[in-house]
């Protein structure tokens, strides 16, 4: 009766706790990954933060970039304390998507956000974030559990008493404590999510008008103000471990848009030999220093196609940790190339950092292409040779020259056996000149 009741509610709440614990990856094989080792260097039980996970290779704390496909190619996610540099595509169409994914992931995971832009008000940027595709069944379970907890919170668990040590659900409404979510680009993020999230905005035209003491530093004033703003936020909110009373650790996600463009007052995109040529690199160095000493991750988009001095691009790449370049096919000759007709552009993963390790997770596949569907931004492995062969075979199957006159009417779903028979005969009938017999062998 009473015992059964206790254990009944106990199991229901422990079920959710176990789920929460497993998604937070509390295992015994953890290392002290984050570099902000100030506050929690003494505690033996590692605090797990929502929306993060440990890398399997070296226990590094990772956050999701918002695109699970990109996470996979970056070695599991973006390491906390590092900079993700996105080299913008030519007309800046797809890089804001990656930027928005990163910020949306932060809102969904409950991280704090810092959005900096010289072009657009951060509040407007946040309004345009994609909506997450949440699992409705899990959401219902969360609501039930929250109600259940309020009633039964003081009943001690008699049988599964170990689970009492796990933290209960926080008051902050977190949609899901998973890592990496899917988003629907065609919908906007719900307003209540933005309101419950903690975000700080830096809009350059607002900040630059106020007076500031002139520093004799080679940074442009825009960069200087942004660095001071970031440092203030990190210090005040305690992301660098300077505020030990804060028990709930959180990640700060920083997003800086169009860094290096003339809107920031920098002229590296305008001239080859510019005056403030060290401004951007110095900014990146100080930013790296700030990130390494705090629990934060940063995404910056830089229009590298506009930077005329190649040396600066190399230096910027060396000062960033993870570098991903986007190349869109719009306006280039690749748009009409049949190899790429299904895709909108290529993704080049130019650099992945080696953190606390001699080696790093690098995928074997180097040809990555992206495609913007109506609701999703997908990244696919595209090897030109295999896709060309596949498309060639597909063309042969669809209209083999000898069978053109007797075309089979398409009645919806094809019979797979029929398709195989057709393929078989077409391959045997038409020798593809430049391939080896291996192709025919594999089909027979």
């Amino acid at each position, binding site marked *: 009766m009473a015992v059964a009741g206790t254990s009944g509610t106990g199991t229901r709440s422990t079920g959710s706790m176990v789920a929460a614990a497993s998604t937070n990856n509390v295992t015994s094989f953890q290392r002290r990954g984050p570099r902000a080792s100030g506050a929690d260097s003494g505690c033996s039980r590692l605090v797990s933060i929502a929306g993060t996970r440990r890398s399997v290779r070296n226990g590094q704390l990772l956050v999701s970039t918002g695109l699970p496909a990109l996470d996979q190619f970056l070695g599991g996610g973006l390491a906390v304390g590092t900079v993700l540099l996105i080299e913008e595509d030519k007309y800046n169409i797809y890089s804001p998507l990656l930027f928005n994914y990163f910020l949306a992931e932060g809102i969904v995971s409950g991280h704090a956000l810092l959005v900096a832009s010289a072009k657009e008000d951060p509040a407007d940027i946040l309004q345009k974030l994609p909506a997450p595709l949440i699992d409705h069944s899990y959401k219902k379970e969360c609501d039930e559990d929250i109600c259940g907890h309020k009633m039964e919170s003081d009943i001690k668990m008699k049988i599964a008493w170990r689970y009492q040590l796990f933290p209960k659900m926080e008051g902050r409404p977190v949609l899901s404590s998973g890592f990496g979510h899917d988003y629907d680009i065609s919908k906007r993020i719900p307003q209540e999510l933005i309101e419950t999230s903690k975000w700080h905005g830096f809009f350059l035209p607002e900040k630059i008008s106020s007076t500031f003491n002139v520093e004799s530093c080679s940074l442009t004033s825009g960069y200087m103000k942004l660095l001071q703003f970031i*440092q203030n936020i990190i210090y005040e909110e305690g992301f660098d471990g300077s505020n030990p009373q804060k028990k709930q650790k959180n990640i700060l996600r920083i997003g800086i848009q169009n860094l290096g463009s003339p809107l920031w007052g920098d002229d590296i995109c305008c001239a080859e030999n510019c005056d403030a040529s060290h401004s951007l690199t110095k900014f990146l160095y100080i930013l*790296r*220093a700030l990130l390494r*000493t705090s629990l934060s991750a940063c995404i910056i988009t830089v229009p590298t196609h506009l930077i005329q001095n190649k040396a600066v691009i190399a230096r910027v790449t060396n000062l960033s940790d993870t570098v991903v370049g986007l190349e869109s096919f719009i306006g280039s000759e690749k748009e009409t190339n049949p190899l790429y007709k299904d895709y909108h552009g290529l993704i080049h993963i130019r650099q992945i950092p*080696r953190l606390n*390790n001699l080696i790093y997770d690098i995928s074997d596949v180097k040809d990555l292409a992206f495609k913007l569907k109506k609701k999703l931004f997908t990244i696919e492995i595209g090897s030109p040779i295999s896709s060309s062969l596949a498309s060639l075979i597909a063309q042969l199957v669809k209209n083999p020259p000898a069978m053109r006159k007797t075309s089979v009417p398409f009645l919806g779903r094809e019979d797979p056996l029929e398709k195989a028979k057709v393929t078989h005969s077409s391959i045997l009938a038409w020798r593809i000149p430049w391939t080896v017999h291996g192709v025919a062998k594999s089909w027979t």
Partner: protein
Amino acid sequence: MAWSWEALWEWNAGKKPAQLRVQGPRPCARLCACAECNRSARFIGCGQRNCACALLPRVPVWWVLPSSLRSIRDSPSSHPGPPCVLELGMFPELNNLLNTTPEGAEQGKLTLLCDAKTDGSFLVHHFLSFYLKANCKVCLVALIQSFSHYNIVGQKLGVSLTAARERGQLVVLEGLKSGVDVFFRPREEPHPLQFLREANAGDLQPLYAFVRDALQPVDSGEAAWRCPVLLVDDLSVLLSLGVGPVAVLDFVHYCRATVCQEWKGNVVCLVHDSGDTEDEESDVLLNGLSHQSHLILRAEGLATGFCKDVHGQLRILWRRPLQPTTHRDRSLTYQYKIQDKSVSFFAKGMSPAVL
């Protein structure tokens, strides 16, 4: 994974006597039995025919006749066996290639590490653990990574940087952490990184003063450490921060004069080669340092692109900068693959994945 002559002998016992393929537990270990290398009975990946092979005829080095093997084994000059390489900690294969041991490290040398199209930071970790094992006093100027990064990698290589720092063997200048202090909370007294606050970064004199104070030999009577060593990782980031290449060259010159000449120590620095990006400042710095250095280790990415089994190519160049070059500088080229705790080297084209 200790390798012993006895084990090799037993392993080879069942093979045909005419041709014997010698392999260590790592397939990339080759045996060279020439008199010059046999001094320390080490393995090299001999792709160059540099060894004056007294014992063997000119065969491809990884084929050793069992008769020669017997004679090597019984000859008095050969070691009983190579030392258990894992005890040494750092990259033992690189030690073999460079013909150094922590006990017999040379002094008064400038070593230049440079990388082109790849990441040469594994060389910095090697030299850091090497000199700490060699009981030298090390000053590490870590401008690009945090201390915990070096510490964690060092633990994989068998040295504890925190312990070394506590006992005074290691002095670390963390560029990132102290850069934030200098930038946001400026103070009046000179700081080694005060060029971060200046508009036109003049010179690196405060940084040199820091190095000098850190490595100053203490006249306490007992010679605690062998020789001072300065390790800079890396110099190219100073160019990105607005310091001119001439100022960086001056800094290295001052360090060399003090550390190498006066205190008979060593200096190791890492520079990035910008390649074809037309970075004039980087070229000036690299050329200037190349002419001053005694040993150049150049890690390059493969010209053909990315490969999973071969991460790059290492070129080792021994130079004599102060003497007229009567004979050609000795140079060797190897390819390498970086693993979790070590780096394996092999001759070009001799990657275990290919063979």
